[in-house]
């Protein structure tokens, strides 16, 4: 039998100590502790002397509080802690609407900006659409990078439905801009060329159908919006593309975060493949919330056998003496508990091995499951420490 695959160890300390690392992007499916991991890495990097800003997209209130921040509002706020090596830590939460508004205000003349900001389509696009979040996170990352105020930016990607919407933002925008529909809406076909004639025929079908389906007023709002926005589109795409290229440079490190569960690791595999496909620099996988029993030397099978032995010793019900409950009940319960933990650990190990078998070159670092959710810097520090220490499973 082949020995189980052993992954290369992901050295997160080496990564954050390397001054050439300027951007760390944490990605992964929802509910795996991605935001916490990003905050923990940011804190650890600051404590090791880096000037760090953590950009989070939708932190749980308690996580913001854990960094001592009462409000996260699109502005990097300093985290109050002692950084012995003259490092520093800022944290901010993306406010996508405000980020979007600022771009509009910065890139359109005042009249046009007012017109755009008041358009119902713009309002719904900028405040409620999930895809906007990815795009604005990208935009904000570009902005933070340009200020050059921090030497390390840690980004926590939005909890996207499809894994890498974050990376898709520029392309999606491009596809949208180049879309025939937009051209139809903004510039009704000029006569002469054959394909435009065809489009022209299509145009009346489209506008006719659209009017029927969504109503003339919506169509008009849509056209107004697209027309007003048209001049800005180019700049949008350019910036999105330049951020995309920035992500491809060696100064960026992608960390895929996953819990040791089949679903999360399936997603992680998908992330890894996507990142490789996009030639994005993947630093490794963070396996979060790994359960490590204290007594690994006692197997689940032996533990259960021992528990059964003790349970068979139990005095049959109704005949126990007044001395109290059976004296082995606690030990038997603890043994059953241990067996469960060992089984869980074995399962987790197995899914991790499957991942490594499929992606043998991807370095892995493990974080032991913490008994409680993170409430303060101490909790974040513990996660950073667990991440940096030797693999949880020894």
């Amino acid at each position, binding site marked *: 039998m082949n020995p189980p695959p052993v992954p290369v160890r992901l050295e997160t300390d080496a990564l954050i100590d390397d001054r050439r690392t300027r951007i760390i992007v944490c990605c992964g499916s929802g*509910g795996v502790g991605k935001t916490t991991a990003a905050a923990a890495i940011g804190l650890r990097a600051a404590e090791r002397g880096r000037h760090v800003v953590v950009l989070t997209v939708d932190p749980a209130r308690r996580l913001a509080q854990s960094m001592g921040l009462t409000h996260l509002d699109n502005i990097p706020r300093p985290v109050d802690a002692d950084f012995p090596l003259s490092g520093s830590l800022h944290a901010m939460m993306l406010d996508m609407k405000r980020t979007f508004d600022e771009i509009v205000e910065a890139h359109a003349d005042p009249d046009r900006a007012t017109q755009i900001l008041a358009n119902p389509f713009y309002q719904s*696009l900028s405040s409620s659409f999930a895809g906007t979040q990815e795009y604005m996170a990208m935009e904000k990352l570009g902005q933070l990078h340009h200020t050059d105020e921090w030497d390390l930016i840690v980004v926590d990607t939005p909890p996207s439905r499809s894994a890498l919407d974050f990376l898709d933002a520029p392309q999606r925008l491009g596809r*949208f801009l180049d879309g025939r*529909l937009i051209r139809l809406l903004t510039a009704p076909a000029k006569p002469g060329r054959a394909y435009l004639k065809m489009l022209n025929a299509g145009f009346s*079908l489209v506008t006719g159908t659209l009017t029927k389906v969504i109503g003339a007023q919506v169509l008009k709002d849509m056209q107004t919006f697209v027309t007003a926005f048209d001049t800005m589109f180019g700049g949008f795409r350019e910036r999105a593309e330049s951020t995309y290229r920035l992500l491809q440079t060696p100064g960026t490190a992608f960390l895929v975060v996953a819990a040791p569960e089949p679903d999360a690791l399936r997603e992680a595999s998908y992330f890894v493949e996507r990142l490789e496909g996009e030639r994005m620099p993947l630093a490794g996988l963070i396996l979060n919330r790994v359960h490590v029993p204290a007594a690994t030397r006692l197997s689940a099978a032996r533990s259960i056998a021992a528990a059964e032995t003790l349970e068979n010793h139990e005095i049959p019900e109704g005949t126990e003496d007044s001395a109290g409950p059976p004296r082995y009940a606690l*030990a038997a319960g603890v043994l059953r508990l241990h067996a*469960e933990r060992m089984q869980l650990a074995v399962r987790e190990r197995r899914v991790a091995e499957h991942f490594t078998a499929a992606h043998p070159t991807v370095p892995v670092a493990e974080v032991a499951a913490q008994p409680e*959710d993170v409430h303060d810097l101490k909790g974040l520090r513990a996660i950073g420490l667990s991440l940096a220490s030797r693999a949880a499973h020894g």
Partner: protein
Amino acid sequence: MLTVAGLEKYRGGDSLTGMSARDSDWEGVRLHVVTGKGGTGKTTVAAALALALSYHGRKVLLLEVEGRQGIARLFDCPPLPYGERKIGIGLGEDGRPGGDLYALALDPEGALLDYLEMFYGLRHAGQALTRLGLVDFATTIAPGLSDVLQTGKATEATRRRARGREVYDAVVMDAPPTGRISRFLNVSVEVSGLAKVGPIRVHADSVARVIRSPQTAVHFVTTLEEMPVQETLDGLAELRALGGMQLGGIFINMVRPHGVAEAGLGAAAAGRADEAEIALGLKAAGLPDSQALAADLAIELTDHARGVALQERERRELATVGQPRYELPAITDGIDLGGLYALAEVLRAQGAA
């Protein structure tokens, strides 16, 4: 697999003597919207609820949104094409076989084409629009539109009638996660910014009427962990603030049995696990090096006890909102079809279906 002890505890009732489940807490509800934080097992619970609802003679539709294909994975079948198809037999009862369970994986594009065909007889025009990028357009720039198309499909299936009666006895929707649910369901308001008048508005209003009727209930799935519980409470408060929507049950998923008697847990949680007593037992069971082993196992017990204490705190927190609560045992080794039926049975016994 479920441990038998674990399952019996949750079945409630007296399943051994074949007594049937108690009445459902949701009589009259025909559209069950299931939401929950990512990672809490929302899809699993939605599927188990659908199985529990499709008892003898009934026909139930399980819907998922946004083309995630979680249902196909759960039922171990190839990705579902856009279309309602039978994927299983519901939970049987009293020796009678279950009813029919259908599934539909919704995506905005399919929902849009459906909408065009159903209301305008415009299938071909719809396809032309797809080619022209209208769907991209809708999902990129008119967010409320794709939501209203998907909720619209759910309400249409709920109301659909044939031969003088409703086609489906119940529709279960595996909805977007808690963070997005109020926006997703508040279609009429979301769309009104875009369309003050016109057909989309009319459509949205009719969808909203079903969602805000006693026929619809919004259920929340959570685990006994801090963040999911907080999101559940926030989500419930948000829906309550919107008004007019029927709040459903709280489905507490992946509950683990305590395993150790309360007294032992209490001491351990306080950091006073009785190492000597454990060591005595280990020795009696013939395990070597019982002292050192007892010390390590005491650490595990303390860890466990703290976890249990935290769970209890979250459980109390959930009890404060006053919605019906159902507990589902943790199924280790991944959910298979057998596990789904076991969960369905647990839900039925507790009155969720």
